[in-house]
């Protein structure tokens, strides 16, 4: 077992894990953060997308021991209490989901994009979530949600990037497809 220490949604966490344990498994089983979903467990679907130092990554392809000293943000880390984050609000307004199982991953990919690009084009939004499968076929509304989220951020002149700086996080990287 290895002891790994990292920041998770703003809080310092320490975990003892087997070297083979993925970040996805550590989040879902060891930390009971089940918002991050397991679907393929091999980097094909994007349902487990989280932010690692501000970049979108697949948690199933990230070993927990590799997170030492790093900043992990999951879907549970976006809302402030009961107040939804703009990307979350946009997904509700645009009906950008059906069963909702891929939704956390989609939202994390869009969040990573908006941290990098405040006024994304439609094509940039499509590219940002092209590594996130949605079997219900909500893609059209996911694009609308991405556009709506950008509007909401513009209205509050507050981007995920600004929030990251306020919280003392690293600036966000490029959020495309989630592969490191």
């Amino acid at each position, binding site marked *: 077992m290895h002891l790994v220490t990292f920041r998770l949604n703003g809080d310092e966490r320490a975990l003892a894990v087997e070297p083979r344990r993925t970040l996805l498994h550590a989040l879902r089983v060891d930390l009971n953060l089940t918002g991050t979903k397991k679907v393929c467990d*091999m980097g094909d679907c994007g349902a487990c997308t989280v932010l690692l130092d501000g970049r979108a990554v697949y948690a199933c392809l990230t070993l927990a021991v590799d997170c030492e000293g790093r900043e992990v943000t999951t*879907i549970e880390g976006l809302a402030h209490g009961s107040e939804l984050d703009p990307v979350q609000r946009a*997904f*509700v307004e645009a009906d950008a989901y059906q*069963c909702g199982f891929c939704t956390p991953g989609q939202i994390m990919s869009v969040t990573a994009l908006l941290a990098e690009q405040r006024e994304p084009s439609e094509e940039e939004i499509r590219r940002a979530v092209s590594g996130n499968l*949605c079997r219900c*076929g*909500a893609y059209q*509304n996911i*694009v609308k949600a991405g556009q709506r989220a950008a509007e909401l951020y513009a209205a509050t002149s507050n981007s995920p990037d600004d929030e990251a700086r306020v919280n003392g996080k690293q600036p966000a990287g490029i959020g495309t497809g989630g592969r490191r």
Partner: protein
Amino acid sequence: MSILHVERQSSKDGEEQYTVQETPMAPAWAPDAGLRVVGKPIPRVEGDLKVTGRAQYAYDVRLPGQLYARVLRSPHPHARITWIDTSKAEALNGVRAVLSRANAPDVSWFQDTHLFEERVRFVGEEVAAVAADSEEIADDALRLIEVEYEVLPFVVDAEAALAPGAPKLHQDGNLDGEPKEYERGDVHGSFGQADVVIEQTYVTQAALHNCLEPHGCTATWEGDRLTIWDSTQSIFDVRQEVATRLGLPEHHVRVIKQFMGGGFGSKQIAWKHTAIAALLSKQSGRPVQLMLDREAENLAAGNRNPTRQRVRLGAKRDGTLVFVECDAIMAVGAFMVGGEASDVDGPYQTLYRCPNVKTRQTAVYTNTGPAVAFRAPGYVEGAFGLESAMDELARALEIDPIALRLKNYSPIDQQSGKPYSSPEGLRRCYEAVVERFGWTDARKLDPRPGEHPIAGSKRRGIGFAAHDWIGGAGHPPGYAWVKLNADGTVDVVAGTHDIGTGSRTGLLQIAAEELGMPFEKLALHLGDTAYGPYAPVSSGSATQATIGPAIQAAALDAKRQLFEAAAPMLEAAPHDLELRDGEVRVKGQAGRKLAVSEVLGKIQPHMIQGHGSRGPNPEDKTIHTFGAQAVEVEVDVETGEVTIVRVVAAHDCGRIVNPLMVDSQVVGGITQGIGFALTEERLVDLGRGVVVNANLEHYLVPTMLDVPEIVNVHVDLPDPIANPTGAKGIGEPPLIPTAPAIANAVYDAIGVRIRQTPLSRQRVLNALAEPRTNGTSQNRGGQR
């Protein structure tokens, strides 16, 4: 709700049958009724849970001491297990329970099979199961289980399985019963009357549901009471099956499903995993979570049966159909699981007016994973054959494909002779698609197939297809309770499910409308066998049309009681009262009113509870749902790539309760249709019987980049004959016509007909490379 009358019917096959008549449904909302809540694009009520990760799926249940289970599966398509030793697995540190043929109770399951079969019939069939402290330990334990197999001959192709001497899957052979046959008129005798005959064979593939949340559950016991969080479309069926098979009384089994990560039909039955988890939990004394991994999900959790359809259409020179004939063979896999109901023959019998129709469908066992319903089972496959053939007929006759369909329009259900409840529904869909797509101008632009280069190697084409569907009508039984709380809020309770379609929201809109209460004052509770009345499986696009009218009736019942309570308070007769915006008012007298909370406050702690049940469908009408889609494609003749440029759809689902959610269903169904048409195919190695793409890397479901602009034109044709809400289902229909519309567009683009799904790049290139015997614009299908 209450039973009014029970009548004994003439017994069939010596079995007693009874019809049950329950309290009537509410009066129908008029088609032009000015509804306030129904028809509004209200966002999903559970949205905040889904976007914060707090929605709890079966996969997300976490109980103290919970174990994680994994299943050992057969590596052989057909084998007899001669020896199994699990002792090394049992000895592994962290392993809490192991189940196999050696120690499992003898529980019968699908057809003539058992929970753990001695004779496995497909790669992926359950051999043993382990529950351990972690998934990793359970995986380690699976590798320690020793099994000896006597490998048996196998067959994975349906036609090969029918050949003499083919390996037999079951005692009676490889036929699932007698072929299903249907005939009206005289097809053979009418051959001579046809001026043109299309005779072709169409092939559809095995498609995999690939729900993102796999099948699975979490099971735990408290004494002799079992609770299961199952990823299912039917909590009551799971309860009944598990209780019956494991010998438990039903009231000691509770099944919960609040959220489910996709089902598409594959979760409409009780699968083995639920019983295995329950037994592992019993054995270990701990809660057990058993979720299938992605490979198992693709091997052993259902598929759309592959088909081969031999089709003959005969028509007069003016397009009038003379006969329709289809002989379909479908591979149902290793055994029947009880949720197939795949009517490939359905569209051939009803979509077009035709006096002479003959169909036959033969279901064949093969050494592959069992088939199960997949969003409009049978009709997706059948529509591909029929609607491709209709396009070929239109080409042969040089008639516009939509004009040909209108020529053969049927306002009656020709199976039963009854008129449809919405006889103009399909016509309205045709009209809506023609207008929005700009079909007439688009056709003028490119009258000849295969001759529309747009740039370099790209060719443009347009295609059309229509559909009908037996689902979407809803049916009894279905129940609901409406409880009015003292503070003026409302609890609506039903035993049904929201499988991702938006039922929570759409059903609440029905309740708010009938009650006259503000939408935000209502909450819907569903998905729990312990705390709601019985509801049937959420399948067949039926939930809104089955449970909606029951909720409407319950709301009306609650409102009636509320008026009884308010009458003395307002010094008016109950029938002079109305409920608007949360207030009980004396009709026509603006000042005389009481808030609902005031009325209820005066009678508490008594409370008002309305009960409602779903009444029968009309006996003299057939309720179908209909739709039409037009597609524009670009085909690259050098790479074989088909790009969908745009899709325009129109579907008759009766009254639109929530346009936001109807649009999502239509767009989502078409997206799955694009996958079915172009990329999705379970590939089985014929020599080894192994599925080679049981994952999301090589089984290609559509991504964001594969989906074009999809427009859903709202037909919004309330159907008060179908049920008092006027709403029918829309879950399955959008998928049905997409693949043939795309195939017809590809023909239009390249002038070569591809009669097999998916229209992969390889198939497009192969088709282009074939010598063209009839020229590019001629029918290739045997013009007489």
